[in-house]
């Protein structure tokens, strides 16, 4: 058992930090309102292009798709540094983490040729059309339908709480193609398709982040389907297993915690209550970090993590919450025009337990799969 970084890993982290130092504008923290904000989406296209040129956008992808076959650790170090910097890749982190790799695995040749190169160049934004008004955690009950019509599918329905939809070029859409509970298929849908309307939902988490997406007789060719009809469940499960520890939220939480403590110290406000609460939050961040590293270690060794990934996710939610609560209690001015990065962290923190599967679903998985408690009768 070893907890050290190799020389190569340390050098890679230093390279990423140097890149960020050089390429983030001076006012970056005040414009980093959230990955979905118009400023950040716009900036992400320029920034991801620069990352791609430097070989830092998709280093873990195969060479054939613009990567250099870097290992799982490189991908995670990159993700940590980007998230800790306020995620200058905007919504494109999804392309890098799981949409690209999912297309490489399940996409047709045509889909791969069309969609992967723009991702590898940092030119395109995707959104994830999963949740619906009646289908959040119970995704299998979704109602958006794709009806076969000759060589096309006609899509009708509504998606909701969709991140990045306002700026997205393409939607990774789940739609019902049959009557059974699991008769769901995936469609890669250009957002410019006639019949699609996007409406932003004002939110607590930041400008431009979540949306409603309406599909009214939106027509896509059958070739827009990813994988086979009814295969969505298997594909999504595999794709989201990468996403469960996809965002190293502990990295930003830890940075925010240290910054908040430094600010309190300067103002002689780091008193007993703050000391105890900050220490607990720090322990929560470090536990989340180690759990996540454990999953990456398994990924690197070709082991597919089971409910251990849910443990990492729950620990990350705990860390995110502990830091956000510390800041709001001891530096309340953060929420009233204070340090913009601390504010952005507070706003995004509430997403931690919701996006990529509610934390309560992770607790179910831990209870039944890891602890092996008897299942709840349904």
């Amino acid at each position, binding site marked *: 058992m070893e907890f050290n970084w190799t020389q190569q890993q340390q050098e890679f982290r230093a390279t990423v930090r140097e890149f960020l130092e050089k390429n983030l504008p001076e006012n970056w923290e005040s414009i980093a309102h959230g990955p979905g904000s118009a400023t950040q989406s716009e900036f992400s296209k320029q920034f991801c292009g620069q990352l791609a040129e430097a070989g830092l956008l998709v280093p873990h992808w195969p060479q054939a798709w613009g990567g250099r076959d870097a290992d799982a650790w490189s991908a995670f170090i990159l993700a940590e540094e980007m998230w800790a910097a306020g995620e200058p890749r905007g919504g494109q982190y999804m392309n890098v983490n799981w949409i690209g790799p999912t297309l490489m695995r399940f996409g047709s040749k045509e889909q791969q040729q069309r969609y992967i190169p723009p991702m590898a160049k940092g030119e395109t934004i995707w959104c994830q059309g999963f949740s619906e008004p009646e289908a959040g955690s119970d995704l299998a009950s979704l109602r958006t339908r794709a009806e076969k019509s000759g060589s096309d599918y006609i899509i009708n329905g509504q998606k909701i709480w969709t991140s990045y939809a306002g700026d997205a070029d393409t939607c990774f859409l789940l739609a019902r193609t049959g009557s059974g509970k699991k008769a769901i298929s995936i469609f890669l849908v250009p957002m410019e398709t006639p019949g699609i309307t996007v409406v932003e939902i004002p939110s607590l988490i930041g400008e431009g982040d979540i949306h409603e997406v309406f599909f009214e007789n939106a027509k896509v060719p059958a070739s827009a389907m990813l994988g086979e009809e009814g295969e969505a469940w298997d594909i999504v499960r595999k794709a989201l297993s990468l996403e469960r520890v996809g965002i190293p939220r502990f990295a930003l939480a830890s940075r925010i915690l240290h910054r908040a403590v430094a600010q309190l110290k300067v103002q002689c406000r780091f008193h007993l209550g703050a000391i105890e609460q900050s220490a607990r939050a720090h*322990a929560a961040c470090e536990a989340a970090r180690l759990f996540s590293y454990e999953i990456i270690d398994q990924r690197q060794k070709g082991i597919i993590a089971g409910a251990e990934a849910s443990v990492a996710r729950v620990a990350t939610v705990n860390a995110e919450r502990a830091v956000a609560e510390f800041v709001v209690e001891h530096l309340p001015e953060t929420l009233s025009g204070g340090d913009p990065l601390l504010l952005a962290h507070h706003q995004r923190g509430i997403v931690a337990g919701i996006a990529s599967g509610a934390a309560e679903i992770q607790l*179910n998985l831990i209870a039944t799969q890891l602890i092996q408690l008897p299942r709840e009768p349904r």
Partner: protein
Amino acid sequence: MDFAPNEDQIALNSALEKLASKFTSPPTDFRQFNLYSEELDQQLELGGFFDAAEIPELGPVSAAMMTEQLARLPYAVESALSMLIKPQLKGDWPRPYAVVDNGRPSRFAKQAKTLIIIEKEQVGIAAAPSEAVESVDSLFAYPMGKVSQKLEYTPLPKTEANKIRVWMRIALAAEAAGLLQAALNAATEHLSIRKQFGRPLGSFQAVQHRMAECTVLAKGVRLLALKAAWSEDAGDAALAALHAQESATRVVYDLHQFMGAMGMTLEFPLHLWTYRLKALLSELNGRGGQAQAVATHCFA
């Protein structure tokens, strides 16, 4: 970064598991607060397990792993300090060890041959004359003893004292990790068998979620303890001990609650782990003490 134990660690763990196999259940009709095994202590001594951390291929991470493994047993034995503190001490101080914190009753004080004395800011070390220590009846599920006379001790220089505090924190966290996991395992077994309203208690989501949260805490304590044993860093040690004491508070309450009235009896041995965790809660100045150490070492 490699989270899998190496070959030497696997071999050591399986040798320890073999030795511990006859100590995995309390005696039939056990109804006591405390369960201590001199036989287990002797076998560990004979097997050379207390010296493992000093073998370069094994080191303190292996010692922390063994501490965690032994803490899962219903039988208490002084292992954490012997495995993790002894290699840090200058001079040959015989085991078992006990920490006497400002004169309060302490775990294994009666069995100890060496006492680590904490008096205010000072840390010292003394031979433990058995006539100077009295056994104390206690709920804590460890054999507890109290020093009854003034002892002469050798104060440790500040740097050495600080180092010992770091290793005491690591020892506490490693022991807590094993206690937490064993307590969780005991409760899981009960929740899988005991039926109410026609179904196992463990199938109720209200129980499942709390058990899952406790599991996340327990596993976090283990990783933080192992990381601290690896890094030997004062900040890591403080974080591990803090998370251990923080988690123990929550887990102990929840597990007794899940056991219902059975958790109030001495028939079901949950208290062997939970009341040991309660003993660890106040050590090294409790959560407040660990938080101060985190502030000093991590937020400098």
